[in-house]
């Protein structure tokens, strides 16, 4: 994948570049907002990592121009400020995710992977998570290339979780997403579907974590 890093702190920018290159991405770095706007106009990037506190044209302005020019790539905003309005401001302008500095590298790479996956899956027919693959057109699932039997509601719950890897999805959110299948769904029913999914997926190293009293989180696949 082709990534653009817009960050004016040289040590941080070089660190990010090396980490993301180690993940197998092609990475370009610029320290100026104006250059980022130009680069995005001339070339196609799969993801932009954008610092808010840039000299002259700041990250908010860069983001605004990206969106005004209808550039579709996901943007991960880095901010050293943590005022609530900064975050809201960033997300309102169309940032897809944000991270407050400093952050752990594994978290950054996980978020980058999630954003890339989401943008690839957007409209795409195939969702891949480790050994699991979902063909959303044919509505067929494969685990380690073997066909996997999933009931309609199990499929629906799994699709919701796959859309938010490493993020907690509340039971209410799952119920709302699955409500298209009609009749009343209790939180207990969701527990039943999740436990069936677990028994099918956990032997392959795919973990669905329960967050007590809140919901579930599909962990990033770390190998079986």
């Amino acid at each position: 994948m082709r990534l653009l890093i817009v960050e004016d702190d040289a040590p941080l920018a070089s660190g990010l570049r090396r980490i993301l290159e180690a993940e197998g991405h092609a990475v370009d770095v610029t320290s100026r907002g104006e250059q980022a706007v130009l680069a995005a106009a001339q070339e196609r990037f799969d993801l932009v990592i954008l610092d808010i506190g840039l000299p002259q044209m700041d990250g908010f302005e860069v983001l605004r121009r990206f969106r005004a020019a209808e550039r579709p790539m996901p943007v991960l905003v880095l901010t050293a400020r943590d005022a609530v309005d900064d975050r809201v401001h960033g997300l309102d302008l169309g940032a897809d995710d944000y991270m407050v500095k400093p952050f752990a590298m594994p978290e950054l790479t996980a978020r980058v992977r999630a954003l890339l996956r989401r943008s690839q899956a957007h409209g795409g027919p195939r969702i891949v998570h480790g050994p699991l693959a979902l063909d959303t057109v044919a509505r067929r699932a494969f685990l380690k290339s073997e066909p996997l039997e999933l009931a309609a509601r199990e499929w629906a719950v799994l699709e919701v979780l796959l859309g938010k890897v490493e993020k907690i999805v509340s039971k209410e959110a799952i119920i709302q997403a699955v409500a298209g299948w009609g009749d009343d769904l209790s939180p207990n029913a969701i527990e039943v579907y999740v436990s069936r999914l677990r028994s099918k997926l956990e032997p392959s190293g795919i973990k669905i974590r329960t967050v007590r009293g809140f919901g579930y989180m599909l962990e990033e696949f770390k190998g079986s």
Partner: protein
Amino acid sequence: MAARSLRAHLLRMLLPPIAALLVLGALVAYYPSIEPATAAYDQGLIDVGISLGTYIRVADTGYHLELPAAVDQVLRRDSYDTVYYRVLGPNGEGIAGDEGLPEPLSGSGSSVVAYDTAYNGQDVRAVAVPALCGRDSCRVLVAETLVKRKRMARDILFSTLLPEMLIAFATVMIVWFGVKRGLGPLARLSEEIKARSPGDLRPIDAAGTPEETRPLVSALNGLLEEVSQASRNQQRFLANAAHQLRTPLAGLQAHTELTLAKALPAEVRAELEQVHQATIRTARLANQLLALARAEPGARGNAAELNLKTLAESGADSWVHQALARDVDLGFELEWAPVQGDAFLLREAFANLVHNAIEYSQRGGRVTVRTGRHGVQSFVEVEDDGPGIPEAERERVLERFYRVPGTAGTGSGLGLAIVREIAAGHGATISITDAIGGKGCRVAITFPHG
């Protein structure tokens, strides 16, 4: 310096001139009225002298006074005073009356003279009146003691002083109560300022305050504007400080983590692990110091209608990852809990409570975040099944940089101080109790109704 009373000061300034006016007024009223009265009394004595003169008779042996006893009695009768008289012949020799009554020191024998002298050991007022005796001129002296004159002087003095005393008393009263009344607007102003919350730096409304207090109000508003300007500057400084600290820390963390991902000699790895841990601690400490500074009165943002349940949900993602990293089972029991507050600060307070609970739990421990309402009061509480906080330490752990002796972990001792500061800013109270199960501890923030 002791506070000076405006009233006492005004009275001190006013009393000497009032006293001087009083004395002056008394003098001005006294002398014009005492003189005609003295003259009238003197005239009485003169009349007596003239009457006595008509009783002088000439005989071969010389002059003598042919005064019937009854007349003598009438002359000497007086309600208050003793009356003396003496008749002198042409050569100044005594003819009749009280021997030794002094003559006037000045004035000729042919004119009427009024004078003060003494007789029989008493002060007397006397007149000398010329009288015809044959072809010669005699002299009659009449004197009386001063009882009724002194009485008259006292009466006059009293009748002039009394109204002036009343005026002076009224002046003092007017000053005493007038100052209190006049300072009423100032008292209302200070009530208004006292009723404000420490973070309220809005200008004071000058409408409804009297003309004279306008300069004070506008000076106060100027000061408030400066303070809130300073507070805005501080906010800007904090935002800049956050950026300046966090970006290099992010770089440091990125490079240590990159290096740690490589194959390293065991001792280099151990050293670098230390650097990495220190970086993370420094980042956290910087965050906490900024949060603490932001929670200071004057730096606080505006209160909004919030729900503690929503705030807890929005923090859940990052807390769950912290909990997973330490193999702690983080759970939620969230109910609707409306509060008025600053979302950033409250989220910071929650994050500190949850972080502490996770940090001090054993591997495999359980941490539960609850929000809800006790009656009309909203609360948030975080419970863990860790070692707990001994009863005696519960007050102290809320102090800045205090850590329970013998505690493992790498905390700065700022977390709960931040929570306390933020709770205080919201009028909320913190309580630290044993966990429901008996093991571990439960920290709750309870918010006031409204």
